[in-house]
């Protein structure tokens, strides 16, 4: 069985400050890891993913996430946030079982304060 825990439901942060959104998972099998972002009144968009190789992955808009196998974590970070980063962020895992099912966390709402 799989589960994903996002420890913070809401994270307010001032513009240009750094932010970390935490994600921990548990799984009986190896997993692939994803972060999705949902802007207001939109569907989810893929932000970044970890499949293999380097444990640090980056997105085109400055976010990065690091896979830590020993701590079963995949925290999302950005060194300096912008107003446009205000959104809800979802961590998800896909078990390496041959299927394509995603298991989502409950989401973290990031609010960037001017």
């Amino acid at each position: 069985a799989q589960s994903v825990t996002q420890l913070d439901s809401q994270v307010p942060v001032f513009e240009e400050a750094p932010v970390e959104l935490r994600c921990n998972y548990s799984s009986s099998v190896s997993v692939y890891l994803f972060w999705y972002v949902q802007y207001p009144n939109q569907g989810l968009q893929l932000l970044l993913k970890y499949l293999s190789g380097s444990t640090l992955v980056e997105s085109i808009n400055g976010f990065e996430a690091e896979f830590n196998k020993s701590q079963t974590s995949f925290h999302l970070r950005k060194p300096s946030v912008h107003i446009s980063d205000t959104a809800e962020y979802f961590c998800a895992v896909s078990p390496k079982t041959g299927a394509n099912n995603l298991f989502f966390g409950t989401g973290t709402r990031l609010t960037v304060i001017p």
Partner: protein
Amino acid sequence: DVKVTQSSRYLVKRTGEKVFLECVQDMDHENMFWYRQDPGLGLRLIYFSYDVKMKEKGDIPEGYSVSREKKERFSLILESASTNQTSMYLCASSTTGEDQPQHFGDGTRLSIL
């Protein structure tokens, strides 16, 4: 770019009605999914399909059914709508492989009165 289109952004229906939510994808993806999204609960999988005319139950299938007669279209059906089915519904599609991301539509906000 993958496009997943949900037929309605907002929908208001009455208790007991039969409700159809439609989803179409344009990338010839094998897999399609229906989720509902509720505050504090994240996304919960209702049904999914790996091929035409094929369906699998997700975590919360009760009160719902699905139809996939064509590869590009996946319909969610509320057989007899109830107020506890008021929610945001999200459709997604993906190609085969557990490392493949899912692509989402913009969602349908459904209110059952």
